């Protein structure tokens, strides 16, 4: 165990190394680039490769390739870069390729304010790619969480053979914090399931455990097929409804059924509360302070900070805020994740508190907006 005083971006890079990162491909983009630079300096010392590709498209496709050579692989980017990666994320979904994308959100749309924060891309992070499935999205609000969730992101990607997004923003990226870094041996590190069957019996897309197939890699002698087309368990293209149905439901279920296992949050004062604040990422810090201010004024306000945004664990969230009469969803955007929560909290009044701020929404501003609803 080590203790250090590092930024959110550095925490991600450090955690990736501990998780076993062996290949990083990237293209510079503010405010994610210092993850890249840090890894360029440190990862080779651990025998890993860091390569700057010609664009984000090449980067993510290289990450997929590296993962199929059985290296743990990641990239880091921000909104515009993530948009360029979307097509390949879809490829990673259908080919069930474990990989991690650290997504450091900045102010948008388009070039926006590249150095400043926002939470505009929370939906793009999981719904952006074509094909209508879901990938896990974890959200950090402090350097410590960035560290812990990066390790978790790798574990989830390996366990479920899926791309995983670790979502932060420009504020967390450059916030310093005390980070307790656990080393290998002090942490649970999950590795993908490798085939136990001999090559002639191996089917690259046949689930062996909870919808997840075992993964052989390039060079293992298994004649693997990485197939972007709709495929059967052998990886053979099969343009048939029965095959498509089976594949879609398996890819969907393996993520969505894991929601309880992936659910990660912190709750303060939710038991017996009248009002619940739900937030995530850097804005959760503002929401917690705002809640504290209201509690000091006698209101029974609890906060739920979500660290797992997708898959959504509906029952878990419902239970946590069950005593609240009103639920406020506080975000640094026009009210995006609110739509998700409104859909699952149908028996409650769910209020969107969208506060656009280039940095952190001010707690006082949250209090003022919320007060009219109390």
């Amino acid at each position, binding site marked *: 165990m080590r203790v250090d*005083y590092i930024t959110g971006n550095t925490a991600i890079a450090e955690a990736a190394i501990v998780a076993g990162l062996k290949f990083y491909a990237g293209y510079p983009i503010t405010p994610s680039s210092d993850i890249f630079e840090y890894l360029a300096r440190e990862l080779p010392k651990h025998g890993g490769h860091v390569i700057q590709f010609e664009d984000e498209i090449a980067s993510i496709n290289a990450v997929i390739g590296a993962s199929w050579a059985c290296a743990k692989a990641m990239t880091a980017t921000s909104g515009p870069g993530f948009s360029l990666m979307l097509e390949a994320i879809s490829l990673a979904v259908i080919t069930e390729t474990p990989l991690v994308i650290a997504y450091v959100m900045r102010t948008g749309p388009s070039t926006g304010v590249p150095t400043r924060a926002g939470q505009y891309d929370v939906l793009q992070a999981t719904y952006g790619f074509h094909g209508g499935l879901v990938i896990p999205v974890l959200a950090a609000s402090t350097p410590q969480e960035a560290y812990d969730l990066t390790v978790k992101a790798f574990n989830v990607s390996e366990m479920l053979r899926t791309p995983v997004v670790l979502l932060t923003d420009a504020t967390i990226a450059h916030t*310093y*914090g*005390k*980070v307790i870094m656990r080393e290998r041996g002090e942490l649970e590190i999950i590795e993908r399931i490798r085939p136990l069957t001999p090559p002639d019996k191996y089917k690259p897309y046949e689930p062996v455990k909870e919808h997840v197939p075992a993964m052989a890699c390039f060079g293992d002698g298994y004649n693997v097929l990485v197939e972007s087309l709709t495929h059967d368990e052998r990886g053979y293209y099969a343009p048939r409804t029965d095959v498509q149905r089976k594949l879609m439901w398996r890819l969907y279920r393996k993520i969505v059924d894991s929601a309880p296992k992936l659910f990660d949050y*912190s709750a303060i004062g939710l038991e017996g509360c009248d009002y619940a604040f739900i937030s995530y990422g850097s804005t959760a810090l*503002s929401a917690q302070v705002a809640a504290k201010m209201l509690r000091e004024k006698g209101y029974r306000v609890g906060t739920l900070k979500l660290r797992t945004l997708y898959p959504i664990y509906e029952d878990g969230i419902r239970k946590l805020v069950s005593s609240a009469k009103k639920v406020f969803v506080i975000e640094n955007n026009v009210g995006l994740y609110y739509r998700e929560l409104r859909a699952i909290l149908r028996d409650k009044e769910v209020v969107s508190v969208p506060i656009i701020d280039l940095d952190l929404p001010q*707690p006082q501003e949250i209090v003022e907006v919320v007060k009219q609803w109390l």
Partner: protein
Amino acid sequence: MEILIAGRGGQGILLLGHILGRAIAKHTNLYILGSEIYAAETRGGDSRVDLVVADREEDADFIKVMKADIAIFMHQLQLDAYKDLVRDGALVFIDKSNTTNIPQRNWKVYLEPYTDIAEKEIGNIRVANMVALGHLIKVTSIVPPEAVEDTIKEVVAREWVDVNIKAFRYYFSKS
């Protein structure tokens, strides 16, 4: 506990804040979050570090100072700009060399010529930040001074370590 450190670009504000934050993180059981603001495009513009320190992790819950318990102001401009972020009863360290107008507040003010001390007594105007840091540590004892010196050695380029430590020790060598 909230600590605000503010001054103009070029005064070493970020380094001061980083060394203090790092020393607290690595050498105490306290939790800490820290954020930096600097106006990159204009040297001489705002430079500010906010540190939020708490006994429990969940109480180090914000990265911006709401009401500072401790503040360092190295320049008049930032003193004017951020004086309302400092609570009554706070300990406020002000560089007398760069200020003329101290607001009438219910603070415990330490008005000391950090810049002049650095220039005349240490021999390098650039270490005014460490003079101020030494003063803050001596008064508050947030972290043991040795921990700060270790942190200086970790963070500062080798050839500048001695002069920074000398500046940091200034107030400790005075009785």
